[in-house]
């Protein structure tokens, strides 16, 4: 038996959480270093996964499979495809930065009465690692039930992170902050729990269907996909649609898709900036990832049936999120609405059912994670300095803290998908992919880009330019720790913006496979492309077919 690499990648942060939580109350600083150490170790393991993964190899690699709960037909089954590998890498990369950025977020307030039993700092970092462990295992799970368990369990540490460690940005009374924070935490939990419980009904239904038709109930993704392909498992289309809706509802809450998005601005606004990054850049990705892995592959017919409605919801998300972002007065809520707009793009790409669309959506997940992390963390540094989240309280920061302003600008430009930075490529691919099948939707989605430019530039203009406000005058520039957080993220944005091939090479075979399960082929191009570069990746196995636009002249 080989070394269970995937299990290790999830167990290490979980172990780290336990160790961090066990650090004595007095050794606050040690807890931080322990947490950072474990997150780096996880990063190393994720790097090994990335290296060991062979993009041209089997569908699921590094698989592990053990009996777990026989009665429920549940197996402990792990395996990664290109999409999962990319997202695990994203998670593992972001967590150390999140920990570093939140270095002082959970320190007790000045003059607070020390309490030997209350250890918020240890708790904060332990919870972050716990979330990492659960996110990683949900990316790895190829058993629907196993996925579901961690998809749901993840809510609990997240809930404590949001409710227990709020943003201390002032301007409001302590009591008001606490009320808002616990409101945000409860809203987060109830939305996601409701989604999860609806999914539970669908999970039970899936078991009933497989038990009915295959003899023994199973949750194994591969088994179900194979059975469907082999014609052993034939779901009535009404059943399939109901099950699809049950799954999709949970993922749409998590992702979040309009009109189920309202928890996100509250949660991101009230939590500290690193936790906000954790929510939008890491945890929410599980929702869009699961649409690709579970919704499309378990219920291909229903997915096609639901596509028009979902595309419309995604479009509404894009436009609505962007419009509300423009109207925000609160920096963090602005970024939250921008994220809703971006999730609209991701979902649009997934359900465009084209190679470019889905490949772009996967890249989008990674790029959005990095760009939002950069923007949000810098915003967090800014907010901590001034003690306010309101845009109106800032002005002229670039004269006082040029490095902070510069990094903020780069994060913002990445968010509006400036060419040369990573998100541009993914957004472009999503639009191309959408356009080739649904031209009208593609056109409308493009409006989102214009609006993105608007909200990012307005935000920058109002906070960073103009006359220097009195309260901002003594603002220090980025410290070394903060630079260590921001610089690598910006480097990654530029690198992936200029040379996305390594990432694309990993992702694309998995996307092709998903497409083949859904039995969708790319539409024939109206205008033959002779040299489309990597945008027109076509599977090696049938390069000569008319599937890809790279087929040459008609």
């Amino acid at each position: 038996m080989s070394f269970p690499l995937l299990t290790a990648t999830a167990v290490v942060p979980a172990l780290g959480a336990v160790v961090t939580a066990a650090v004595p109350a007095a050794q606050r600083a040690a807890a931080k270093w322990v947490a950072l150490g474990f997150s780096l170790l996880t990063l190393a393991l994720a790097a090994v996964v990335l290296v060991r993964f062979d993009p041209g190899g089997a569908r699921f690699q590094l698989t592990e499979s053990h009996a777990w709960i026989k009665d429920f037909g549940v197996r402990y089954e792990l395996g990664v495809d290109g999409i999962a590998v990319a997202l695990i890498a994203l998670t593992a990369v972001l967590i150390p930065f999140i920990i570093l950025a939140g270095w002082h977020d959970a320190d007790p307030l000045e003059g607070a009465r020390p309490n030997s039993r209350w250890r918020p700092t240890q708790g904060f970092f332990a919870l972050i690692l716990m979330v990492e462990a659960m996110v990683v295992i949900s990316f790895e799970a190829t058993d629907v039930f196993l996925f579901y368990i961690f998809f749901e369990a993840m809510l609990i540490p997240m809930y404590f992170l949001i409710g227990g460690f709020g943003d201390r940005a002032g301007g409001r009374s302590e009591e008001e902050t606490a009320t808002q924070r616990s409101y945000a935490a409860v809203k987060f939990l109830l939305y996601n729990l409701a989604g999860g419980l609806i999914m539970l009904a669908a999970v039970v239904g899936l078991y009933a269907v497989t038990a009915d038709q295959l003899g023994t109930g199973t949750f194994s993704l591969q088994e179900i996909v194979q059975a469907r392909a082999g014609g052993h498992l034939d779901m009535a289309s009404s059943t399939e649609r109901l099950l699809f809706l049950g799954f999709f509802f949970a993922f749409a809450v998590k992702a979040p898709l309009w009109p189920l998005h309202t928890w996100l601005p509250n949660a991101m606004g009230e939590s500290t900036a690193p936790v906000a990054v954790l929510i939008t850049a890491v945890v929410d990705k599980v929702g869009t990832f699961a649409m690709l892995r579970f919704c499309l592959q378990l219920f291909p017919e229903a997915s096609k049936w639901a596509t028009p409605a979902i595309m419309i919801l995604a479009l509404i998300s894009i436009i609505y999120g962007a419009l509300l972002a423009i109207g925000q007065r609160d920096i963090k809520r602005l970024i939250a609405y921008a994220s809703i707009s971006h999730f609209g793009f991701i979902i649009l790409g997934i359900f465009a059912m084209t190679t470019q669309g889905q490949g772009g959506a996967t890249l989008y997940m990674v790029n959005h994670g990095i760009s939002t992390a950069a923007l949000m963390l810098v915003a967090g540094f800014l907010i901590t300095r001034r003690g306010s989240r309101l845009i109106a309280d800032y002005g002229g920061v670039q004269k006082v803290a040029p490095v902070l302003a510069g990094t903020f600008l780069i994060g913002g430009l990445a968010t509006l998908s400036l060419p040369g930075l990573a998100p541009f490529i993914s957004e472009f691919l999503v639009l191309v992919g959408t356009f080739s099948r649904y031209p009208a939707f593609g056109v409308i989605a493009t409006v989102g880009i214009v609006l993105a430019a608007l909200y990012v530039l307005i935000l920058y203009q109002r906070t960073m330019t103009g006359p220097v406000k009195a309260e901002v005058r003594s603002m220090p520039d980025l410290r070394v720790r903060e630079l260590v957080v921001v610089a690598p993220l910006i480097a990654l944005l530029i690198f992936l913006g200029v040379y996305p091939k390594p990432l694309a090479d990993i992702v694309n075979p998995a996307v092709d496979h998903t497409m083949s399960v859904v039995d969708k082929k790319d539409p024939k191009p109206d205008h033959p492309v002779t040299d489309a570069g990597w945008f027109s990746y076509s599977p090696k196995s049938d390069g000569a077919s008319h599937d890809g636009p790279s087929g040459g002249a008609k």
Partner: protein
Amino acid sequence: MTHAATVHSLWTTAAAAPDKIPSPDIEYGQLSPTLIVLGAAIVGVLIEAFLPRRQRYVAQLFVSVVALAAAFAAVIGLAAGDYGTSKARVAAMGAIAVDGPALFLQGTILLVALVAVFTFAERRLDPVVHGNRVDSFAAQAAAVPGGDAEKAAVKAGFTTTEVFPLVLFAVGGMLVFPSANDLLTLFVALEVFSLPLYILCALARRHRALSQEAAVKYFLLGAFSSAFLLFGIALLYGYAGTVAYSGIADVVDGQVRNVTPALAGTMGNDALLLIGGAMVLMGLLFKIGAVPFHMWTPDVYQGAPTPVTGFMAAATKVAAFGALLRLLYVVLPGLRWDWRPVMWGVAIVTMLGGAIVAVTQTDVKRLLAYSSIAHAGFILAGVIATTPEGISSVLFYLAAYSFVTLGAFAVVTLVRDAGGEATHLSKWAGLGRRSPLVAAVFAVFLLAFAGIPLTSGFAGKFAVFKAAADGGAGALVVIGVISSAVAAFFYIRVIVLMFFSEPRTDGPSVAVPSPLTSSAIAIGVAVTLVLGVAPQYFLDLASQAGVFVR
């Protein structure tokens, strides 16, 4: 001689030789769990009568623990001897079934009782009175609350050690209840465990009036439900001419071998069967606490001493669901097209009613009471499945749920202020800051109630929902899921209160318990997590045990 006899036989038949009184054939070995517990209960009574007051506590505790452990060992022994599977049989002349579900539930009840006895015996939580350590029970139950006799009893440091034999009697009845194989045994068992519970409910040391009120309520409503049950039994007897489960089942299924004229007259009379069956069901649903027979639950849960509440909430439910399962699966399976729609309705209103009303509760014990109602609804969904999976999922759920409940109520006993236990939810604000460990443990129990994955509550809920979906009750699953979402709201609210609210300056303190309560809570947490993470062994056990003997 022979000639005369033959002539005689032309118009008479020889009367059958008068039946010798059959010597009762009692399988002491197979009944040993019940016998041990009841025997120990009698020993407990004798201890009360003959031992000096000072020595009673230790002696009673010792006898109870040893008896429950021995009875549990006996259950294990029977199960190991295949009495749960291949050698399942009917014992005590048809009165008691010894089979898988009976042994599984008896084992569960005994373990629950053992852990509950730990919380009964806790004497470090209440402040020392006149130099004596006291427990949660009244100094002298017969003394008028607030009267001189009570003051004298308190001053003398009396304690009600009678609770131990009372618990043992209750446990004895509960052991028989799910294994009763005829209706009369069922009724006797019901009374044997109900009466001690009525008394136990009245024994709280603090808020005695509330406690006595709860007991009276419980007693009156319980008496009503017993009357319903008894009347139902009479009607069923009228219908089938027998009280034996298998006999009634034969009549219901129309498979009677020799139909006597009397039987032929009644067996077509479905009114007797339907009304009788419905009344027996009512009696059982009352004990389960299903809507609309749940009215007693919140008052009794709130008023009873908390260790008793925990014991009652866990063990009564196990026993009553066992009896309900046996009744529906052994006696009335032929009638399932009639009872299933009714039970659908009961399950739906129980799930939704319990969950929705719980949202408005402000007292932690009442909250847990309504949550127990909602859980009864979830378990009913498994009962309705009418498949072997339905049985095993209910068995598993009961085992999982009872330890969560026990643990949760044990935690409630720890949170105290000057007036005893601080059960009002507003007093729990900020508990997580003051005592993170206790709050975290309670949070684990709440998450298990809410059915969050990796806790036993999730495994149990999944098992019953799966069985229900397989059994053709998919709509029930959807309603179950919706009420779970509602229920999650109020569990989460308590967690919010504990962790995210500022502690009140006059808030309660957490008493440091003796190893007795600590171990009860630790067992609760351990079972919750083990059944959540690695439930396979116990699911296997439950599915092996999932066959009734007839």
